């Protein structure tokens, strides 16, 4: 079905690209070194891969994954090789799962402000997005 749709849209000259929506972050307090950015990524016509991200808001930006160790200890690790975004699929960067980590914040993330981020996809290339800063306890984009 997906292939037929892709062919149909292709024939019309409308090729769907990876799209990113509902981009948000959590407010931080002065001195807090790190922040996280969450988003909903929808795959385009072809399989793609989120390779990395950059932002003026932090010294370093990395893709991280949260995992639960066998002893109930939470672990956070950089995602090696990027994050697969399947054609027509949806990948949520969300709490307790994947996030874009801002390391070495240049200024605290203030509630209501926006954080510019550039995502780098293997096929779709660079995409500029803006994360809306929500409360420190927010769990989703509409959690306000």
């Amino acid at each position: 079905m997906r292939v037929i749709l892709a062919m149909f849209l292709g024939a019309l000259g409308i090729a769907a690209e990876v799209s990113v929506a509902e981009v948000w972050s959590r407010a931080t307090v002065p001195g807090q070194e790190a922040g996280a950015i969450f988003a909903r990524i929808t795959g385009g016509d072809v399989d793609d891969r989120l390779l990395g991200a950059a932002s003026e808001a932090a010294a370093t930006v990395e893709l991280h994954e949260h995992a639960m160790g066998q002893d109930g200890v939470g672990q956070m690790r950089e995602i090696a090789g990027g994050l697969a975004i399947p054609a027509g699929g949806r990948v949520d960067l969300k709490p307790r799962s994947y996030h874009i980590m801002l390391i070495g914040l240049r200024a605290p993330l203030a509630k209501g402000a926006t954080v510019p981020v550039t995502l780098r996809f293997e096929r779709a290339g660079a995409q500029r997005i803006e994360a809306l800063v929500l409360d420190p306890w927010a769990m989703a984009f509409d959690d306000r």
Partner: protein
Amino acid sequence: MKIPIITTAVAAILVIAAAWAVSEHRRTHHDGRSGIPAAEADAPPEFALTASDGRSVTAASLRGTVCLIYFGFTTCPDVCPTELGWMMRTLRQLGPIADAVQPIFISVDPERDTPAKLSAYAAAFHPRMLALTGTPDQVKAAADAFGVVYRKQTPVSQQPGFYLIDHTMTTFVLDREGRIVHRLASADTTPEQAAAMLRALAGGAP
């Protein structure tokens, strides 16, 4: 014909054993007191730490108050805000009874979590949240008393000197005698369920 029967029997035993192991794991990891020996469950964890305002806080000084305690660090961008947010939502569910519950954040990162940073961080989640820290030895002793594990990651980030800390993600509920009566996590328990547990503990007159 015999081999398939034996195979089936072995498979059945394995399935039953696996089911038991899973239920045992859930019981010991999620159900407050039932999975650990009574003596251990009844012995209140002892600790001596310092609040972000400089006050000394010990297990004894908190007796008489129902407490919610979570160990974490302010550089943690995902899990700690998630669990502290869950704590805040739980208190919100309690209404006026929330005043009888003390929310507490204990930093496992005494090197980076300064009192000033901790004060601001705790206040961002709840105006009455107490943020505690101490010397590395005091923090280790407190974590040990609760069975909390934390370990600094080998720095893998491209940011020089930056590190994260893997840590237990449990919120402990202490009764007025300072005993651990529940071990909770936002992934397993809703704020409504946690609020019902707290209402049973803190609802009556102290």
